[in-house]
């Protein structure tokens, strides 16, 4: 071995290897378990397929579709030996469907669909993944396992032997609970939605007469006001949230976030310089539509689990409502109690609203301009 060359190579490597490049080798294993069957596919980079079974038959350094098709049988045999699915007790036989090709950001992948049939209804799935274990120990199988509307993910390979996955424990209810929590949490941490609603609700316990705020004499009209505003807001943001969640409409988040800030300014200023004194629910509805897009961006980041999309969406929405209602129930009785005091009518109404408007103006500048 030429020492100088080795040394030089190491040097070259050292100066650069600290900034690592490129994606490592991944296989994408997608499985859907249902009853006694698991249907699924394995996606493997063509380059990895070449290493596994040899695809480039004419040796010209290129793999064509013709060559790939001709290797279908050997790929299937390889898969039989390197991907074993079982019900926890015994292996289940695998049947293949015709090979196809899928394009990913880092190149073409061969897509090998199959169906596995087990003896009895599956409560557990064992997966033994040893694809490329001899050729590339850094290869991993990224598993997406769908069962009863719930998605599990895992990283397979790396000589860890068979892995077992429970198909029974997970249920749509776990997704429901998770998204319910996310909804509540978002309304609590997303103070902008609450401030908008509060700005509209502050005057609900008052009446506007001769350019002055007066307390409502009895609870009924205040209650009607609150119910109208909350319902309108809920209805509006539910509509747009659903539309966005199912990808019917999408707005740039900078735009929605800016308009949400603007909506708070408008709602708050309306308390200081009242323009709309009757039917504030209309403001709640109109801007509620935009707040819905705001919620949607949170949901988009969480992603809706496949098969439990609707349940999760409903859960998230209910969470938002629950969080919202908790605030209304905490604040509005107090507002009702204080409604005839000067502190409320001359203090909180104008100055509290001004403070909210200022804060929202700050957000607006930050979101729209900066």
């Amino acid at each position: 071995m030429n020492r100088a060359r080795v040394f030089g190579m190491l040097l070259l490597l050292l100066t650069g290897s600290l900034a690592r490049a490129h994606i490592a080798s991944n296989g994408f294993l997608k499985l859907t378990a249902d009853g006694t069957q698991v249907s699924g596919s394995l996606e493997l980079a063509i380059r990895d397929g070449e290493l596994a079974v040899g695809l480039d038959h004419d040796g010209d350094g290129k793999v064509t579709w013709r060559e790939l098709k001709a290797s279908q049988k050997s790929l299937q045999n390889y898969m039989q030996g390197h991907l074993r699915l079982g019900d926890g007790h015994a292996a289940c036989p695998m049947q293949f469907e015709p090979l196809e090709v899928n394009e990913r950001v880092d190149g073409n992948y061969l897509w090998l669909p199959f169906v596995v049939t087990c003896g009895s209804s599956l409560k557990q799935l064992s997966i033994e993944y040893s694809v490329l274990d001899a050729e590339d120990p850094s290869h991993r199988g990224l598993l997406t396992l769908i069962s009863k509307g719930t998605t599990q993910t895992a990283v397979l390979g790396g000589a860890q032997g068979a892995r077992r996955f429970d198909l029974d424990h997970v249920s749509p209810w776990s997704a429901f609970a998770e998204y319910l929590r996310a909804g509540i949490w978002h309304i609590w941490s997303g103070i902008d939605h609450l401030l908008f609603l509060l700005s509209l609700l502050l005057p609900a316990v008052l009446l506007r007469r001769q350019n002055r705020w007066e307390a409502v004499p009895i609870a009924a009209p205040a209650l009607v006001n609150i119910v109208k505003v909350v319902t309108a807001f809920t209805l509006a943001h539910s509509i747009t949230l659903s539309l966005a969640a199912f990808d019917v409409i999408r707005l740039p988040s900078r735009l929605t976030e800016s308009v949400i800030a603007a909506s708070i300014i408008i709602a708050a200023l309306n308390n200081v310089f009242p323009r709309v004194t009757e039917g504030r629910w209309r403001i709640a509805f109109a801007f509620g539509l935009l707040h819905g897009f705001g919620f949607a961006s949170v949901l988009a980041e969480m992603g809706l689990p496949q098969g439990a999309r609707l349940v999760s969406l409903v859960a998230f929405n209910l969470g938002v409502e629950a969080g919202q209602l908790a605030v209304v129930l905490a604040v509005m009785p107090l507002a009702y109690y204080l409604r005839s005091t000067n502190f409320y009518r001359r203090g909180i109404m104008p100055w509290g609203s001004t403070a909210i408007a200022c804060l929202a103006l700050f957000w607006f500048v930050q979101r729209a301009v900066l």
Partner: protein
Amino acid sequence: VSSRIGLPRISRGKLFACAALLLNFVSLAANAQPHIPGNDDTVLAELSAGTRYSDVAARRSALNRVDVAIPLAQFYIQQSRLTGDLRFLGYAEAVLGGWVKQTHPNPDVLVLQATLQQSRHDFAASLATLDRALTIRPRSPQALLIRATVLRVLGRYLEAGAACEHFSELVDPRLGALCREGLRGLNGHLQPAYAALTQISPQGWLNSEKSWLYSELGEMAVRLGRNGEAKRWFEEDLTLVPTDFYVRAAYADLLLSEDRAADALQLLRGQESFEPLLLRIAIAQRRLNDSGLAQSRSRLCAAFDAERQRGEAVHQRERARYLLEVEDEPEQSLEAALQNWTVQREPDDALVLMRAAKAAGKARAAAPARDFVLAQGQNDVRVEALTATMLVSR
């Protein structure tokens, strides 16, 4: 400092939104449906050297012959560097695998193994492997140099210095000086170290050795604020070794810091397959409102997402920059930068952390980096400029 406290954060877990992002660019076919190519002659992949099935035979013989295993592993490591394809590191690992586990391993095998571990940022394992190699062959310049490099990345300059001293006794004294002065440039003696390195004449050196010298000089010049000189060193290096993507990235960063995004883009043209360079491309595209940004973004997003799915966190420095300079997510960027700082402590790591902290309005979060830089007496005009503005904003 608290200017952003109470501000609703809309975009938690942005990285998990890759799927959504990718869907927006269906043209890339990121999540496209599997299909049957229309033509039998459609070329689906081109195979580069070392990726053929026929090579598998050579690999098999490497299982029984260490004299095949060592050069083959070296070849794969080199291919990984030339092509940016991480798969080659896996191939090298496969070739070395059995030899590393032996009770009396060949020290050359251990040095290569340590190199692999270091490129996966598994620094602790790399140091342990080097210890084994040095026990067997204490006078191994390769092992000592990797040891010095790893310790330097970790910010353990005293130990790195010891490794350099030891290394110097075994090699061309000019290489020893390069190792030593590179370290001195990080612990308070940047100016004299730079001056000393400019005196070195690389006559008779291998390209890789020259490249080491030029990249060290270039980076020092950047930290000194001598941008013109830095550019000359970087250009010298790239003329010699056009595939040196590490220096290309450093050069691009310099151009970006001078608001010359268009020039940076020009420098990086055709280098999209290297993620660290793709990151700089995306940053430049964003500044220029370039239409290519969508594609770069979704590719980067997919890369970080794949890494996350594998449970690896090797690219935290790049991820922090991506989040800050492409996605405009200072809070998440800060999180990644803090995580990165626990792993590596190069000047760029400090810089990334401070920038993220500043953008997130949490100057105090950058304290670990700032304290480290101060304690080492590290001079870096970029850090100094940033510290000044952070003090003002407080």
